[in-house]
């Protein structure tokens, strides 16, 4: 569906979660009043101890899970269910074994009103963006984990989303590919060539977070709340070996204490 960006709308928020509460069916309370917001042109990172609810939060922000209370808004409209404009890239690698790389990528265009030729061209382009030129007819079983994750990322690209929700997207990649892809995603964010406006990324890799993010949300406690929000103002490109970078890194580490149970 078409979404119009109203100029008179002062807010330039692309995606926001307001006052989110959530518990799983077994009664486990995951969140208590989470507020999070990603603005146009911003790279947002979420960090927090394992099991705190980062993947769950991404699912809520993508409309895959319904919060018990609170709302998620995309471009100012309330989100009730997943839409292609908000693309989720999973923590575990998700490829469909019965389709080759190109068909896997085309999956995210199937519901769009475009011809098959166009789809194929676009799938090729997406694949080459993640460095899989010439691997179009390989099946997932013939690929390494890192290649498969790149197929999943290419599939998300091909949907032309406004927002990427990325759950540890680079954890399965070798450092070289990961670095290339990080830069690529970051450049696309500001190129203006695609509709992509913002990225929300979950990561355990604090160096990676500090290299990329404009804003960092820190989740902790049970049920989880946002215990800290850090604006990263270091100029780019950021050098992970600089003193300033390391000072920031130390500050981030100090936030990651083991979760405490409230109540």
């Amino acid at each position, binding site marked *: 569906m078409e979404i119009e960006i109203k100029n008179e709308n002062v807010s330039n928020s692309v995606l926001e979660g307001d006052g989110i509460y959530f518990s799983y069916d*077994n009664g486990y309370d995951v969140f208590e009043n989470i507020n999070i917001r990603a603005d146009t042109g911003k790279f947002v990172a979420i960090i927090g101890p394992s099991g705190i609810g980062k993947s769950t939060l991404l699912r809520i922000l993508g409309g895959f899970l319904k919060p018990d*209370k609170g709302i998620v808004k995309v471009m100012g409209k309330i989100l009730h269910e997943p*839409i292609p404009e908000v693309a*989720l890239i*999973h923590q575990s690698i998700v490829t*469909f*074994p019965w389709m080759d790389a190109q068909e896997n990528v085309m999956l*995210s265009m199937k519901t769009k009103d475009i011809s098959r030729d166009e789809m194929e061209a676009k799938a090729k382009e997406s694949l080459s963006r993640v460095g899989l030129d010439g691997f179009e007819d390989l099946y997932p079983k013939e690929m390494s984990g890192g290649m498969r994750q790149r197929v999943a990322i290419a599939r998300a690209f091909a949907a032309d989303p406004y927002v990427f929700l990325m759950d540890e997207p680079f954890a399965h990649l070798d450092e070289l590919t990961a670095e290339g892809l990080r830069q690529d995603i970051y450049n696309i964010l500001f190129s203006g060539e695609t509709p992509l406006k913002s990225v929300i990324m979950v990561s355990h890799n604090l160096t990676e977070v500090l290299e990329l993010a404009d804003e960092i949300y820190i989740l902790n406690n049970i049920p989880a709340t946002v215990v800290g929000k850090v604006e990263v103002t270091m100029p780019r490109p950021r050098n992970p070996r600089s003193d300033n970078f390391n000072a920031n890194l130390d500050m981030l580490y100090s936030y990651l204490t083991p979760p405490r149970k409230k109540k």
Partner: protein
Amino acid sequence: MPAITLITLAVLATVARVIGLIILSIITGWFLAYASIKSKFFENIYIILIEIFESVPVITFFPIVLIIFITRIGGTLGVELAADFLVFTAVVWNIWMGEYQAFKTVPREMVEVVENSRFGLFSKLRYLYIPFSVPRITANLFPSVSDGFFYITVSEVFEVGIHTYQTFGIGSVLDTFVADGQLFNIEMALLIMGIAIVAIIIILREFSKYAVGRYTLDTDAPVMKRGRLNLKETTRVFAVLSKNPLTRLARYYKYREGDNHEETYEKKEKKQKRYKYIYAVIGVILLISILYEAISLITSVKLSEYEILIGKTPSLLIGLGYDYLRVGTILLVSMIIAIFLGYYLAVNRRAEKYGIPLIQSLSAYPAPIYFPFLFILTEPFIFSIFGVYTNELYVLSLGFISTFYYVFYSFWMGVKAMPSEYWEITRNLKLGYFRKMRKVVIPSTFPYLISGISSTINSAWGGLMIGEYWPAIYGTHSLTVKTGLMKTIDIATATGDIALAAWGSLIFGIIVAVYSILFTRKMMDLAQKKYVAEEGVYAA
């Protein structure tokens, strides 16, 4: 028409019937499975019905079904549909249950990917659910094909009272050959049927290899289980039933909000809600129509007739007792042979390479077709040894033939699935053959054995149903036992005493269903403990 053409056409007709019904089961199963993952209400009705029907050998209800088809529809079509219905009920539960299990176990992440692109019902099925279910369906194809052939050949010719009904196929063609004593044609028919079966088995094996290679996830091992043993799912169904609505309601009141007037994204969900109601309505219609058939059958019998039926009940129960003894014997023999042979084949690659396809072909070759010839060839010899027990022995053999495969195959799969560490342990400890069996092999294949046993019991009843009363099995020879509930039902059908046949089937159905549900319950409790342990991890 030359006999050879006739035979070939008849074999093709029978094969087409079985394959067609299997395909019908597969296609309907996809939609029903999808309906049950979308609607809890539908799921609960669906699964309970499958469990009940799967636990009752439908062949015992065949007479009643037959009457319904012949009186309501009638003619050639009625007979054809009756035969098809019998085969359908023999193959369908496995396949439906397998598809349901496959749909239930599609990884959440894959579902999220197709949801992310807002796939509709047909696209979801086409790109995700159907391909995902292929390995599970393939695993269920072998038993379904065997079951299908077993029943098709007996259902192509049947007698009710003075009427003989038949529909074209190898079963009915053979029947005429036998009646006329055309020995050469009989041999030709058996041969051509054999060729068809072997061809089908080869195609199935190739397809199965291909399907496993192409459609399984990297982490997913193909599991061969005849449907029913997924108790965990059932447990889950009950757990959700008992707990979920309350927590949901509580949460609803806790977080209730006023109306929201903000602009929202177009909802696809409203349409899905409507689907949910449709599924629920289908479920209710199913239930009501089954109840209606049952009640109309019950009320169609006069009160005085019920008195007679109740008077006969004790002797029916005694017959059932005998039949349980027979089933027990068949099971025991099958298990012993399956364990030794299955183990041997599982550890000997060369023997396995030829042994498994051979056993598969033998099991798919419908016993009712060749059994009469086996009988007539061996009877004089067997009689000279066993005397009055000769018939009993043949009935047990027929039960064994129709059932052995399931125990064998489950056990063999179990041995194949044993972790390699177990083998290393047995080698380290230098265990002897019997200790290895007792301490390692049998315990670790236990779940497979159990699942084999429950399907075995089912097929054993089918074998008894055919064997306990087989008039004119060959020429003037008849096969019959002294006492047995299956025999009583058979005779009642043949003499047109439908009330007695139905009553016998009903008693049988209730007892078998109660037994197997109790059995299932026990297993379920076991599984539930496991389930709770897993849940505890989340809560901690």
